[in-house]
């Protein structure tokens, strides 16, 4: 008896095992058919498997999937409805059935099926998320939004639903509604600020998004929840509404008692963006509002730099940068004093620091270039040199001292200062090459052509250096004129005088060479220099005549194209005759199609034509 029972059990188990194994093999076969694209055969096997084991969810899902892929939607509906009769509370089945109806193109029925379980199931926010996921999958976004909304109403966790809603609102370009949801999130959890801000800013460049988002966030401003203030300030910046952003940061700093931390970050951002007028105001506010803040020295430096940037913009607009040479104009204004005072204050606060040396350098440069107070400027540059041999500003201070010496006609002093730069190991190669070029010119003015050429050759070892072009031009001039020592020295005298801005005297020297047609290349360059000196002296009629003479020389003068270009510039900027300027530029295009001034001429023509029309 025991043996019989044992045998029966063994045989039954073996039978069941074989039966299961057979089903699994069939399932694997159906999957293979499905993957190979033979959905008809796969479907037939899945049908068989499902009939054998209707309770097996895997068979049900596979069969429904193939029905849907075969677009046999009626079969899918029957199958799912059959399944629903057995599992009436399975929310996923309603999701699937609605999906099939949606694919059939019957949106109304799909929505009805998706809504159906909520009429008889216990209220549960998770159910709404499940059905909404089916709607999203079918890209029925409006229905998904409706479901998420209803789920949110009964859910204790609003945030998760708000994220879903905000995502769908953004996707469907309903930015105002998205903003509402993001604000709900921040109201419930201010720590979500970074997340929310990233998501809102991702849409900020979409048409109209910012315009509708800002008013929504404005409504949520709350004294106790600063996350809205941070968000709104960022949105104002994005909208280039810097004043409103400023107010926001003032408010944030007040609330947080941070002594201007947020304002300082904002001011730095504005300075980097080139919004100097506003950055100046923001730095100033930090200084006024938080006099005891540890940020005061940095704010004062930022303030001074902003002031200087504004001053330089004004100054650049007042000097004739279009001229190759122009006289130092004494530029005096309240702004200049303000900038110098600001830098002086920084230099005092930051004693013996890089910021202090930089402030001294800036003051020196303003004294030299804007106020033409060379002795005072020298004092500032010498302070840097004496106090800070290793400072980054020291090379610049030497260079400026060299410029002043050159301007004063003191070649020995200029040489000494430029030389100090070239022998320093701490200074970068670009500054060294710049000093070498200036030193080469000094040597040239002194008549030491050989040393000048040696220095120029050193620069030309790196043709990518910024000084390489200038070095090449001077080197060519010296090489081609080495057999004409009398004229080359005369030319050097002219150049030296031009550097000293003694344009009248320089013109006399250049004229001597220009009148001498035997001077070859020196004749060409002296002719144009002569015209440039007259231009520097604002003697437009004479400079026009001289430039025209160079143009007439045509191919004989390698600067003829430059002369024509400068003629056009005189008419454009000096005389204000735009029509004549266009005529000159067009002549340049016609006569010198290979000139390096062609692109500039074209741009000017386009600009002037737009202006005239």
């Amino acid at each position, binding site marked *: 008896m025991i043996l019989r029972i044992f045998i029966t059990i063994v045989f039954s188990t073996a039978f069941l095992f074989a039966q299961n194994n057979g089903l699994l093999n069939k399932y694997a076969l159906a999957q293979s058919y499905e993957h190979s*694209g*033979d*959905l008809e055969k796969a479907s037939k096997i899945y049908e068989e498997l499902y009939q054998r084991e209707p309770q097996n969810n895997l068979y049900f899902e596979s069969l429904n999937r193939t029905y*849907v*892929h*075969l*677009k046999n939607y009626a079969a899918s509906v029957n199958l799912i409805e059959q399944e629903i009769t057995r599992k009436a509370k399975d929310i996923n089945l309603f999701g699937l059935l609605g999906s099939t109806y*949606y*694919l059939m*193109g019957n949106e109304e029925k799909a929505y009805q099926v998706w809504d159906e379980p909520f009429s008889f199931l216990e209220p549960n926010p998770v159910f709404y998320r499940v059905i909404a996921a089916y709607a999203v999958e*079918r*890209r029925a976004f409006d229905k998904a939004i409706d479901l998420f909304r209803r789920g949110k109403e009964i859910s204790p966790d609003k945030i998760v639903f708000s994220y879903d809603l905000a995502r769908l609102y953004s*996707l*469907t*370009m309903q930015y105002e509604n998205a903003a509402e949801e993001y604000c709900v999130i921040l109201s419930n959890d201010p720590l979500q600020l970074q997340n929310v801000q990233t998501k809102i800013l*991702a849409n900020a460049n*979409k*048409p109209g998004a910012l315009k509708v988002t800002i008013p929504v966030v404005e409504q949520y401003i709350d004294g106790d929840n600063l996350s809205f203030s941070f968000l709104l300030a960022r949105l104002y910046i994005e909208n280039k509404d810097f004043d409103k952003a400023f107010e926001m940061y003032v408010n944030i700093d007040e609330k947080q008692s941070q002594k201007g931390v947020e304002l300082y970050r904002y001011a730095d951002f504005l300075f980097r963006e080139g919004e100097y007028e506003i950055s100046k105001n923001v730095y100033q506010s930090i200084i006024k509002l938080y006099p005891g803040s540890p940020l005061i020295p940095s704010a004062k430096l930022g303030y001074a730099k902003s002031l200087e940037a504004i001053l330089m913009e004004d100054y650049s607009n007042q000097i004739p940068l279009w001229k190759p040479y122009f006289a130092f104009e004494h530029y005096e204004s309240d702004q200049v004093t303000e900038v110098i005072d600001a830098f002086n204050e920084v230099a005092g606060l930051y004693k013996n620091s890089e910021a202090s040396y930089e402030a001294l350098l800036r003051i020196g440069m303003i004294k030299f270039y804007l106020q033409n107070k060379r002795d005072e400027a020298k004092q500032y540059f010498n302070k840097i040199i004496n106090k800070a041999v290793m400072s980054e500003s020291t090379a610049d201070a030497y260079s400026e001292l060299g410029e002043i010496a050159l301007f004063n006609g003191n070649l020995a002093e200029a040489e000494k200062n430029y030389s100090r730069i070239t022998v320093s190991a701490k200074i970068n190669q670009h500054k060294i090459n710049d000093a070498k070029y200036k030193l080469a010119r000094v040597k040239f003015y002194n008549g030491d052509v050989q040393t000048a050429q040696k220095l120029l050759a050193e620069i030309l070892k790196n043709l990518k250096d910024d000084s390489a072009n200038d070095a090449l031009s001077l080197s060519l001039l010296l090489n081609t004129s080495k057999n004409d020592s009398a004229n080359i020295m005369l030319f050097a005298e002219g150049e030296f005088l031009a550097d000293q801005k003694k344009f009248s005297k320089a013109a006399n020297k250049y004229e001597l060479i220009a009148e001498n047609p035997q001077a070859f290349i020196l004749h060409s360059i002296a002719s144009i220099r002569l015209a440039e000196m007259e231009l520097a002296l604002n003697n437009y009629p004479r400079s026009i005549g001289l430039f025209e003479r160079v143009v007439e020389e045509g191919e004989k003068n390698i600067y003829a194209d430059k002369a024509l270009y400068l003629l056009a510039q005189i008419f454009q900027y000096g005389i204000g005759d735009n029509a004549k300027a266009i005529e000159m530029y*067009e002549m340049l*295009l*016609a006569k010198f*199609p290979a000139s390096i001034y*062609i692109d500039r001429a*074209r741009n000017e*023509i*386009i600009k002037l034509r737009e202006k005239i029309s």
Partner: protein
Amino acid sequence: MDMNQTNHLKAYGITFNALNKGIKADWLLNYRGGSFLLDYNDRIAAGCRLEGVTFNQVSFAEATDIYSFVQSDDNNMDVIRLEKAPKIAVYVPPGFQPWDDAVTLVLEYANVPYDKIWNDEILKGDLEKYDWLHLHHEDFTGQYGKFYASFSNAQWYIDQQIQYEQNAKKNGFKKVADMMKTVSVIIKNFVGQGGFLFAMCSATDSYDISLSAQDVDIAAQMYDGDAADPGAQSKLDFDNTFAFTEFNLEMNPYIYEYSDIDIQPIEVGNFDNDYFTLFEFSAKYDPVPTMLTQDHVSVVRGFMGQTTMFRRSRIKKSVIILAEREGTDQVKYIHGNYGRGTFTFYGGHDPEDYQHAVGDPPTDLALYKNSPGYRLILNNILFPAATKKKQKT
């Protein structure tokens, strides 16, 4: 316009705009790389100088000599009179594009005026306002460029899909693919009625695939919500297409390819050897292909695209091959007639950016003023201006 020309591309713009002002021009096919002869006036001369276009002023006698030389039976050259500049439309979706369009770039650079149109305009019949239509990297199969595998989570892809879906809904279509099929047919009718179609990159094969799949769903679930028809391949109707036939669809939605029309990068091989050769046609007997292949070089640097080149075995016999990679079955540039109009397909995305990727900055054409690859594009905007001559064959 041989190697002495300083700006080939702008020369087309000068000629196009002269035609627009009612000035007649002659296209001297194969004469010094294909040159334009216009009656001199100061404005045109100033325009050439302003744009940096080299020109020679010739006397009446010299012009007569040139005409005589060009029309001589000893030379494979001819004169084509250009009379009226075509009205140009470029098919692009509104708003920002994550990558750029070579045709738009060159039209802008050469100052050739054009309108941008999209599905709304085509569906309401606006094509009849235009003579010439350009399609670039658009996907006419409704599969969003088949970028799903690489970019389905990228914001631009998500935005693009929504944009198309909303556009389809607005125009009364349940699926984007259905809208694109309708758009394809309208474009086909435009050509049939005498329009000129110029397509590049993926607009070439995806357009023809769309025409062949009018009655079958070839888009997978992630593209249009439902599965593709598993028997789609056998249901394609190649009689409907312009240029391609007997091609096999790439039905895998994760593979960035529409069909076997396109040549794969591995088949292109070494980047350094990728050049294509322009066919030389008889200027006097085949003026249209001659116009389309005017260039200052006959061998042009290749360039890739979503559709790089066309497989010769998939091109209909009736289609004229304008350029190919010699010794291979890789065809770059084709042309054909349909009804009263013509179509020209040019493989690749940007002639001066070998492998232009999504998000790459646009090419600055000021650096490629003499681009032979871009010049082929511009041939297409001027050839519709040609006066029809009585064919010699």
